[in-house]
């Protein structure tokens, strides 16, 4: 059996609000095998970012992890005291965010910020830490690393800031890097560079979990994909399998939307309606309101994830086994 860097089982996150309890992460299970890039894809509000935060132990009140387990290389992370989690974050698992400007301290030189991470997790001198920072800068291909070391975040472009964040997140050689929409705020030519960088990190031994709404990004770098909709995983498969034979009506709709836009002429395919409000989810399948294949029982009970082929699971009553 292949080694797993991250194993998430039955993860639940609840947010209590005046209007009721939201479940942005509802019984979510997934794995990130060692040395691979795994993607979670979905539209805004589907719970993908909350899943990432829950893995990092960064769910803020009124949100709460109400169940499930998160195993990082065999170590259970849920229920760990904050003090221990802090030791792990940045060293064993780290995260980069969509908007690099808001994750950097605006009044501290970027080199110092990376150095801080190193000195927090390893006992070393200022000089050593600086040398390692510069090395990390070169690794993520920041040009003129020495000069950039003394820059403040506002003096750098969006692409450079994201590189600084990746340097910071990878400098301690974590087992897992979570990238939450790492390229959404960036231009396409910069995006291509950043994706390349994530692949290099993977090759250097860090497993990567990418959260994205962009199917192009997922197709380019991920080995395995999970599709989320309204807090649940609705389909999972190896990347080439899911792009070749999507089974869930939502995944199909999503892929067809993107494909029809690429092909261009005539009227574009769409998914009717909008993503449902998490407070007013239908009793059965969350996609039933927008689904063209909806049957009476779809509205009353939630389908289980069913295996339709090797490594391919679908949460739909109508998904057939492959070859039948």
């Amino acid at each position, binding site marked *: 059996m292949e080694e797993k860097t991250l194993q998430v089982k039955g993860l639940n996150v609840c947010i209590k609000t005046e209007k009721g309890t939201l479940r942005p992460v509802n019984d979510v299970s997934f794995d990130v095998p060692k040395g691979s890039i795994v993607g979670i894809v979905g539209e805004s509000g589907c719970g993908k970012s909350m899943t990432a935060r829950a893995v990092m132990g960064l769910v803020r009140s009124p949100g709460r992890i109400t169940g499930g387990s998160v195993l990082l290389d065999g170590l259970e992370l849920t229920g760990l005291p904050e003090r221990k989690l802090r030791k792990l974050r940045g060293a064993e698992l780290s995260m980069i965010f969509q908007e690099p400007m808001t994750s950097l301290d605006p009044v501290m030189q970027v080199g110092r910020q990376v150095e801080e991470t190193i000195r927090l997790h390893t006992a070393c001198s200022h000089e050593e830490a600086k040398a390692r920072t510069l090395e990390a800068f070169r690794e993520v291909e920041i*040009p003129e690393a020495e000069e950039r070391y003394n820059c403040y975040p506002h003096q750098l472009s969006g692409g450079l800031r994201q590189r600084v964040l990746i340097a910071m997140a990878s400098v301690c050689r974590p087992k897992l890097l979570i990238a939450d929409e790492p390229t959404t705020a960036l231009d396409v030519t910069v995006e*291509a560079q950043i994706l*390349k960088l994530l692949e290099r990190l993977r090759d250097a031994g860090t497993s990567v979990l990418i959260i994205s709404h962009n*199917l192009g990004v997922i*197709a380019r770098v991920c080995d395995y994909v999970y599709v989320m909709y309204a807090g649940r995983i609705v389909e999972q498969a190896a990347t080439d399998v899911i792009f070749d034979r999507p089974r869930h009506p939502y995944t199909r709709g999503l892929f067809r939307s*993107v494909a*029809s836009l*690429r092909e*261009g002429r005539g009227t574009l395919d*769409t998914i009717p309606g909008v993503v449902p409000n998490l407070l007013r989810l239908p009793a059965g399948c969350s996609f039933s309101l927008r689904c063209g294949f909806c049957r009476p029982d779809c509205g009353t009970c939630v389908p289980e994830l069913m295996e339709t082929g090797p490594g391919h699971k679908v949460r739909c009553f109508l998904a057939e086994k492959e070859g039948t």
Partner: protein
Amino acid sequence: MSDVLLEARELTKNFTAGGKKLIHAVSGVSLQIREGETLGLVGESGCGKSTLGRLLIRTLRPDSGVVLLRGHNISSMTEREFRPLRKELQLVFQDPYASLDPRMTVRDLIAEPIETWHLCRNREAVTSRVGELLHAVGLPEELLYRYPHQFSGGQRQRIGIARAVAAEPSFIVCDEPVSALDVSVQNQILNLLKELKGSRNLTILFISHDLSVVRYLSERVCVMFLGKICEIGPTEEVYRHPRHPYTRFLLDAVPVPDPGERGKEIKLLKGEPPSPADPPSGCRFRTRCPFATEQCALEEPSLRDIGGVFAACHHAAASIC
């Protein structure tokens, strides 16, 4: 060939930032937009595409150069002379959350331009006109007295579009109208724009950083880099056979939603984008261009016709694949 609706001649706009620093947002841009045409405008952030859009509809005034609407110079007009023409030139914004007044009902939001231009005789006529517009953008009329916060992003963008077409303009600038929306909703809005364009004979400048979106809607496409046009021509021709090296990099960089394409080696641009405060001499793309020669640093390339597509590159003819 149909008539030219809007023409820009040598438009230049600079902004000052932090004291003396001059940001060259748009530098000497000339283009023509024909009646009933959709022109796509693509480029990366900071290339001046939004500024150009705003110059064309006179929400910004150029430092030099002129904009002609059906041959009339709207840049030299006084506010008073221009006012009757304002109705012709409208804008759809990127962020449907920020561009609608949260305290106005949908009816009032869409009625505002109708009332401003006295397009209807009385209140009832305005309301029924608003109803028609709602219907035209695919929203049920029952929603007339709701507020923006009660709508989803896609629905809000429909309201924004209804507002823009309410004054019956001949030209609208759509500035990244779908980039704040989810994929499945994005297509609904693109379908709507295409439909409205046909039914209302709209001329559209469609600004986007998303190349596939532009390809779908536009007959012609214009690629900008650092305040200048580097390539302009028929969409399919530009996408299939880009003349300018920058266009080629841009098209290559877009991640394709097909894992089969993974093996393909992606050519990466070298270095960092140059600053618009201090653009390189000669060709502005030369610091990142693998084909750059000495000539590129000395001499600024002008747009020239290369088989039906205009490109500003000294080596364009040689580098066509």
